[in-house]
């Protein structure tokens, strides 16, 4: 009977075109509004590294104690970056399964083809463990080794996009490239990789990963500039930046088991106590260890405003569905005579209910597709309003399409339950005599 009901539903929808179009429009507009905000929200709230987000941690230490923090701090007053000395001490300790210190900088690429003008690229100075820790996919080659870190080896990993630009997509592993006038050997080319939010550096939370990765030790040796620095005293020169009054180094550690986490917490506590004993801290320094989800929550990557916006848009969807339900009720009341005839000819209430609910589901499917088109238009509109960084959040993927259609069908079915129930309860005797 499913095929028969579907045929009847399609005919019924076509027979009352105006009402059908209004219902579809009501559902489509509601879905469009809800999905536009939900798509952005999902991008903001997504787990950027599923399956591993509970194994990657940021250690924090109270570097400034009772002194006023020199820069933005978290809600608990802790700085979200480390001093260079702390970062290098953590690296040398090898207390985690993998660990990476890092910061962002910029360099100028000087293409070997002299016809191409030099251009600026974003660079991440980090440790070789970065790639394994964060499951970075490789198109060609691999990351560098710990030995390369220790040896200050002039090696780089570049993005697929940069490889396309410099080498027309060919395997460039082993070849050289010039950055700020210095030669670097290419160790690997990353494949498409875009963790959103970009959890490992929340300074530009929705930005693309950098195009060049090179060893942290090389960056320090070459005195490559870094972005956000918070110092409690003015830093006169490069050497001051490496002292304990400035925090600027991001640090991540991979701890695959609960025991490893507990052990690392103890390591942090011991480290803070040692710093106090050595006279660096005049206070008992607090320490903290947060995994990816906790880290994102700590930094409120999903703002309260975004949450409210989603709630408002879903309220709008609810209003649209109420309208659709009203239209559906009107439509089904108009069809009461036909439904009465069907009842007289042997259709049970359940059969009528199923037939009408299938009609609602069809409205939901078409409304969902319309909603997807409107969502795409909405996201395009938003893209023109926000910075390039935020645009990465504003695209539809397969899961969004599935969510939109499922949401539309489910919501329309829910909205259709009452009208359909009313239709199934129609009193045939009332209509058959009056016809």
């Amino acid at each position, binding site marked *: 009977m499913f095929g028969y009901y579907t045929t009847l539903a399609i005919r019924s929808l076509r027979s009352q075109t105006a009402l059908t179009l209004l219902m579809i429009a009501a559902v489509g507009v509601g879905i469009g509004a809800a999905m536009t905000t939900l798509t952005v929200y999902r991008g903001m709230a997504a787990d950027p590294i599923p399956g591993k987000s509970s194994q990657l941690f940021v250690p924090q230490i109270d570097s400034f104690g009772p002194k006023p923090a020199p820069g933005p701090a978290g809600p608990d007053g802790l700085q979200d970056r480390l001093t260079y000395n702390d970062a290098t001490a953590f690296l040398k300790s090898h207390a985690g399964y993998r660990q990476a210190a890092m910061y962002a900088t910029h360099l100028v690429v000087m293409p070997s083809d002299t016809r191409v003008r030099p251009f600026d690229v974003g660079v991440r100075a980090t440790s070789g463990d970065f790639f394994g820790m964060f499951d970075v996919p490789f198109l060609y080659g691999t990351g560098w080794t710990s030995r390369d870190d220790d040896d200050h080896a002039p090696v780089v990993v570049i993005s697929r996009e940069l490889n396309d630009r410099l080498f027309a997509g060919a395997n460039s592993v082993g070849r050289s490239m010039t950055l700020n006038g210095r030669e670097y050997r290419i160790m690997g080319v990353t494949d498409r990789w875009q963790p959103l939010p970009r959890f490992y550096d929340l300074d530009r939370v929705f930005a693309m990963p950098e195009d060049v990765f090179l060893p942290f030790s090389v960056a320090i040796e070459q005195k490559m500039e870094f972005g956000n620095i918070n110092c409690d005293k003015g830093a006169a020169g490069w050497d001051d930046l490496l002292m304990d009054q400035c925090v600027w180094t991001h640090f991540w550690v991979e701890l695959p088991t609960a025991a490893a986490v507990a052990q690392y917490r103890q390591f942090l506590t011991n480290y803070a106590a040692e710093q106090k004993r050595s006279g660096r801290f005049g206070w008992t320094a607090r320490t903290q260890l947060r995994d990816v989800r906790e880290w994102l929550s700590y930094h409120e990557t999903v703002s309260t405003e975004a949450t409210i916006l989603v709630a408002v848009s879903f309220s709008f969807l609810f209003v649209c569905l109420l309208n659709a339900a009203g239209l559906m009720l009107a439509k089904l009341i108009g069809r009461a*005579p*036909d439904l009465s005839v069907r*009842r007289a000819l*042997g259709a*049970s*209430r359940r*059969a009528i209910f199923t037939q009408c609910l299938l009609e609602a589901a069809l409205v939901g499917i078409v409304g969902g597709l319309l909603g997807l088109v409107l969502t795409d238009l909405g996201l395009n509109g938003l893209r023109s309003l926000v910075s390039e960084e935020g645009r990465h959040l504003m695209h539809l993927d397969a899961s969004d399409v599935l969510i939109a259609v499922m949401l539309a069908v489910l919501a329309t079915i829910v909205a259709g339950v009452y009208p359909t129930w009313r239709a199934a309860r129609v009193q045939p005797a009332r209509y*058959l*005599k009056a016809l």
Partner: protein
Amino acid sequence: MLKMTQLSKIYRTEVVETYALRDFSIDVKEGEFVAVTGPSGSGKTTFLTIAGLLEDFSTGEYRLDGVDVRGLNDYRRSRLRNEKIGFIFQAFNLIGDLNVQENIEVPLRYRGLGGADRRRAVSEALDRVGLSARARHYPSELSGGQQQRVAIARALAGRPRVLLADEPTGNLDTQMARGVMELIEELHRDGATIVMVTHDPELSARAQREVHVVDGQVVDFAAPPRLVSGASAHP
């Protein structure tokens, strides 16, 4: 075939009870053609809707083809209605966006018949009412008489045990009405059990017997004014 005993239908409001049928008894035997007559508001249509299992009754007993219908749930009532009853309405009640063949198929679909069985049943029913050439036409393309013939074909297609007709010629002109009544009489001669509600004395005169209803009660089991050939009247 269709037996109601001391059956009442009461409509209740907070302040008043209205009897649509009161201690209504009727026994229609298999193959009988009975006319139910009475003035407007007498309860004829209520009787028909209860007989057709479209409405419940308040008290009494109703057996359809031996089945006690009291207490049956909606699904079983619908099933029973689909298998045992064929309706012929005054206003034909064809579904406008289905063609003739699809209209006739409706009860067969709910019975769960397969495509081949449905097509055969539709073809036979259309042959019976002389509208085989109109299978693809829509109701709006047919005359009133043809529409009523389609409605009769729809009622016949499922081979019901009893045909319930409600003023079957009420919306037709004289010539078309005559044709439809001749068809109904022909069906009866072929053995169909027919209960026809009408207030038209000319139509009721063509039935084997007449049951007269006033104020929801059977007041007279009239003697058959004219016997249809070969059939016998029941007291």
